[in-house]
């Protein structure tokens, strides 16, 4: 294992809503090594994006980071001053969002939006910033970059916009890129192109990527390790190959059974019964218990601990008690 670039510890982000406290992120911990890709996998609403926004300190009211730590290169982002945090955002940590149509400002040209990023981080200004912008667009595989600079977002195709957004995110040579469902809004052929681009950038620039996705196909192809999230908690993590080959948590197993196999019509698709729990009224025990095919008596009332299950693997499930060492307490992990 290399050097750790990001370590999130016991992160809790809550939203106070009219229906009560929503624990969107409830004790998440994860680590990202330099140069690796960590996939954060889960269904919509499981807290993946809020985890990412919490790391960037971009959670907006009524959301609030209640406790935890996000150590970036050894320093806790959650304790930094606003000014210091601004220098990190877009500087040392870049972020790519899901929908490139709504993420680029419709009223400013591509050039304005790239250049302002370079300027604010002191990376380049004036003519140099323009030249850098052209280089960036070129590196993102955008043809005729000079012309594209003058374009407005609505004049570009979806894939092109996503490339522009990635260009902005990596413009100041970040060490970590958080990509929140970067291909969800694109069609399949573009998905592959954008993922290849991300892989190439990662290779060339040696940056680490936190890849948020619900697409297990992307996870298997483009990431080194994966963390599976369910209802605000990480329920399982480990190296991608092993995690997909031999999933431990019943939820991960269920997720994998939901993926249709190309050319294998004989393998049935089995949906996970039930639905994601109401995040303002979570069950007291394991959050997956109401939907779990292997549920036991204690699952409903007792929150399972996180157990180590092999090198680099861990799972939050009562089934693995005694199999592995408990890694952390019942409350957090």
């Amino acid at each position, binding site marked *: 294992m290399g050097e750790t670039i990001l370590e999130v510890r016991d992160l809790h982000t809550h939203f106070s809503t009219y229906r009560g406290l929503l624990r969107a992120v409830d004790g998440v911990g994860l680590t990202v090594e330099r140069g690796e890709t960590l996939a954060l996998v889960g269904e919509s609403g499981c807290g993946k994006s809020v985890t990412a926004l919490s790391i*960037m300190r*971009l959670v*907006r009211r009524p959301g609030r980071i209640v406790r935890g730590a996000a150590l970036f290169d050894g320093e806790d982002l959650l304790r930094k001053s606003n000014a210091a945090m*601004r*220098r*990190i*955002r*877009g*500087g040392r940590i*870049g*972020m790519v*969002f*899901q*929908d490139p149509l*709504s*993420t*680029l*400002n*419709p*009223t*400013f*040209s591509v050039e304005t939006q790239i250049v*302002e*990023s370079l300027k*604010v*981080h002191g990376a380049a200004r004036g003519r140099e910033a323009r030249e850098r912008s052209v280089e960036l667009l070129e590196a993102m595989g955008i043809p005729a970059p000079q012309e594209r600079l003058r374009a*407005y977002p*609505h004049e570009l195709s979806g894939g092109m916009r996503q490339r522009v*957004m990635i260009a*902005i*995110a990596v413009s*100041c040579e970040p060490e970590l890129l958080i990509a929140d469902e970067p291909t969800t809004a694109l069609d399949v052929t573009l998905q592959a192109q954008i993922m290849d681009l991300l892989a190439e950038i990662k290779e060339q620039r040696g940056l680490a990527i936190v890849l948020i996705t619900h697409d297990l196909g992307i996870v298997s192809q483009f990431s080194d390790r994966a963390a599976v999230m369910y209802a605000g908690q990480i329920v399982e993590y480990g190296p991608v190959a092993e995690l997909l080959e031999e999933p431990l948590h019943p939820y991960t197993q269920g997720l994998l059974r939901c993926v249709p196999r190309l050319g294998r019509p004989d393998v049935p698709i089995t949906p996970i019964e039930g639905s994601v729990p109401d995040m303002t009224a979570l069950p007291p025990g394991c959050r997956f218990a109401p939907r779990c095919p292997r549920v036991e008596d204690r699952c409903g009332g007792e929150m399972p601990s996180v157990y180590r299950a092999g090198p680099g693997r861990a799972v939050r499930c009562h089934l693995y008690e005694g199999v592995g060492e408990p890694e952390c307490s019942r409350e957090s992990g």
Partner: protein
Amino acid sequence: MWGRFVTQRLFQLIPVLLGVSFIVFLTMHLTPGDPIEHMLGQAGRITQEQIEELRSHYGLDRPLVLQYGRFLANAARGDFGPSYSHHGRAVASVVAERLPATLELTLFAFLIAIVFAIPAGVIASLRPQGILDRAATVGALLGISMPGFWLGIVLMIIFGLQRDWLPISGRIDLAAMPEYYTGLYTVDALLSGSAPALWSALKHMVLPGIAMAAPMAAMVMRMVRSSMIGVLGQDYVQFARAKGLPETTVVGKHALRNALIPTVNIVALQTGLLLSGNMIIETVFQYPGLGKLAVDAIAAADYPLVQAVVLIYAVSYVLLNLGADALHAALDPRVRVA
């Protein structure tokens, strides 16, 4: 592209003006009140013959259609005829004398409204339901609910009568009158380098300006607030933050520009209302502008003068909308193509 856009819009002016002139012409002539009687006042020794003579002198004895036709033909050349209530002076010259006063006051009120409303709307949007937002909401409610004439009178009583801080009528102290260049006293004061004239002209506009600006400021503030709240929840604002931009840039550049797009039309509409509102405000404050001129002309059944003033209002409405469309296109690249 701009040339074509503007020409197109100016051509659209023609049917608008025809329609407006027809409606005004008709309404004026169908309203009770005989201009000749107004003109002659209480003078009792005038014979019916003399009245008929005057009537035919002004062409009022001809059929309405012919009167309208003649009015159109003359108006197209800029000749609105003699004003009945200004001793037969040409309407054009009477209007030209009053127009600068109204332009100046309207612009002043517009500036008050904008300078106040946009920052207030932005501040209110940053923390919806916060103390500042609630205060702004109460202020806006007051601004919208208070009728202009009432607010004008209250302002006069408080700042003009109870405390002698600001003048309550007129445009300027006669002693401070600047040399005539444009008829806009503030501009003339600057051109002739007279600080007392500038000061006096500004002071005279404060109370009527506030009374005119209040409802507009309230509407624009609410509009800026609500569109800012919408825009601040957009992904591109979040992305701007993720780029590491300072909050002032995120709000003042990325969010505000987008929030102003829907606001522009409201501003144009409200400025139109400023214009029509100045009839009341100018009357309350005895401010010698077009609005007061129009009110007096209506009372005197001075058809030509009323027609000219209303046409000016119509033209300014169309020009305002033209300006709004141009500004819209300048702010939003997505509408430039069309």
